[in-house]
């Protein structure tokens, strides 16, 4: 029987920083992750982070990962890898620990930091080997150091599409182009400028219409792209065939919310934040008492926001157990929320700030109704 105050599910940026913050205040914390290595998606982020210095701008993702791992280790957090959390039930939390089934944990608080998974895109040929998630490409080239293909078409010009395109160039692959369905580039101008300087064309108002197979139907041989009209329909006659062996898909992510669903948390929908999301308050607690969410599972954003949300959930969970004096806890939460507000500014951040605010408001309304 694992005896712990706070169980954190997911050892990525949100989960590790939640664990560190809670452990720093004397809570006994256990982090579980189904992977054999901790860090979530941090170790494939080989670019420097954005924002202010307080948000670790200028530091590469993997360095943030190493620092966080050192921190949780020094704070005595137990990190259980190769451990799958398969459900949250009235009897406790169900784990499979290195293949050993039905290990039950009864933590006093739970922080879900399960992240998000990449969205596919449907078009003729979309299941061919060679049509891959952009994040998957990033894992293979940066973490495992193997090429996925030689000539790549990137679909989507958000930050993921732009950054992974640049990292493909760094890995020695050729990026034949980036298609973007909207009339303008989705991600930050600096990232777009970098790939453009390297000679990668960005086709705005374009999409991929099909992937053509090789002769034995085992891999992508070419991609057909076309211009889109104002209704997002491909314009006949504008098709163009690109000689590629890989089509990387960077069209957004969906929060991995299954555990919150099993636990009975109420959900809301936000297209901007990736889809169905557990309702949560400004402490990141869901409608299930003692169940918190942090990072992409509470709305898809960035690693920098995941780190701060993790801290917030960690402080809130530890404070709710009486580990932090109330005044100090409120002060800390205020400071982290302010930091999150700073991260959610600018043309991209403002919309996310509003979307997150709506979730908190909806939660408050729901609570008001209940107590009324």
């Amino acid at each position, binding site marked *: 029987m694992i005896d712990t105050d706070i169980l954190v599910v997911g050892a990525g940026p949100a989960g590790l920083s939640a664990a560190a913050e809670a452990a720093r205040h004397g809570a006994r914390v256990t982090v579980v992750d*189904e*992977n*054999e290595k901790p860090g979530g998606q941090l170790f494939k982020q*080989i670019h420097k982070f954005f924002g202010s210095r307080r948000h670790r701008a200028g530091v*590469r993702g993997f360095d943030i990962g190493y620092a966080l791992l050192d921190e949780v280790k020094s704070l005595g957090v137990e990190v259980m890898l190769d451990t799958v959390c398969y459900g949250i039930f009235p009897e406790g939390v169900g784990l499979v620990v290195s293949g050993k089934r039905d290990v039950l944990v009864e933590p006093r608080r739970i922080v879900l930091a399960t992240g998000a*998974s*990449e969205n*596919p895109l449907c078009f003729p040929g979309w*299941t*061919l*080997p*060679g*049509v*891959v*998630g952009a*994040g*998957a*490409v990033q*894992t*293979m*080239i*940066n973490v*495992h*150091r*193997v*090429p*996925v293909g030689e000539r790549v078409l990137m679909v989507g010009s958000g930050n993921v599409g732009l950054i992974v395109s640049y990292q493909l160039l*760094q*890995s*020695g692959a050729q990026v034949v182009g980036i298609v973007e369905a909207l009339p303008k580039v989705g991600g930050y101008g600096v990232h777009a400028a970098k790939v453009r300087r390297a000679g990668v064309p960005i086709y705005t108002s374009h999409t991929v219409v099909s992937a053509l197979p090789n002769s034995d*139907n*085992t*891999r992508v041989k070419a991609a057909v792209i076309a211009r889109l009209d104002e209704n997002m329909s491909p314009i006949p006659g504008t098709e163009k065939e690109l000689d590629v062996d890989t089509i990387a898909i960077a069209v957004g992510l969906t929060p*991995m919310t299954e555990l919150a669903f099993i636990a009975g948390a109420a959900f809301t929908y936000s297209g901007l934040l990736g889809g169905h999301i557990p309702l949560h308050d400004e402490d990141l607690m869901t409608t299930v008492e003692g169940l918190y969410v942090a990072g992409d599972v509470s709305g898809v954003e960035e690693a920098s926001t995941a780190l701060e949300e993790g801290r917030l959930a960690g402080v809130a969970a530890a404070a709710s157990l009486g580990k932090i004096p109330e005044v100090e806890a409120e002060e800390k939460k205020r400071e982290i929320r302010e930091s999150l507000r700073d991260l959610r500014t600018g043309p991209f951040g403002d919309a996310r700030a509003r979307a997150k605010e709506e979730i908190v408001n909806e939660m408050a309304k729901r609570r008001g109704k209940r107590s009324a």
Partner: protein
Amino acid sequence: MKRISDHPILGPLPEAREVWITVDGERLQAREGEPILAALLAHGIHVQNISRKKKAPRGLFCGIGRCTGCVMTVDGVPNVRTCVTPVRDGMVIETQEGLGKWGDRK
């Protein structure tokens, strides 16, 4: 074998102990601890299974163990997610047909 041996940010490829795996009867070299799928991609193997209904080849999509595009039969156990399962010396890996069959477990 295709490896990204030199990288402008990550530097040279770190040393790793070599292990040997058997893929559809062929003995191939891999790096200890890497996922099966990474080793296969390094050898230019992009098809991991043939889908049940449409008999279409499938391979890597998500790389995080969610989509099951890359499942194979490993040591007689079908539907092993090769993107999140590390190689072990002596592993026997087979391209899977449909849902696969249970074989002799090693």
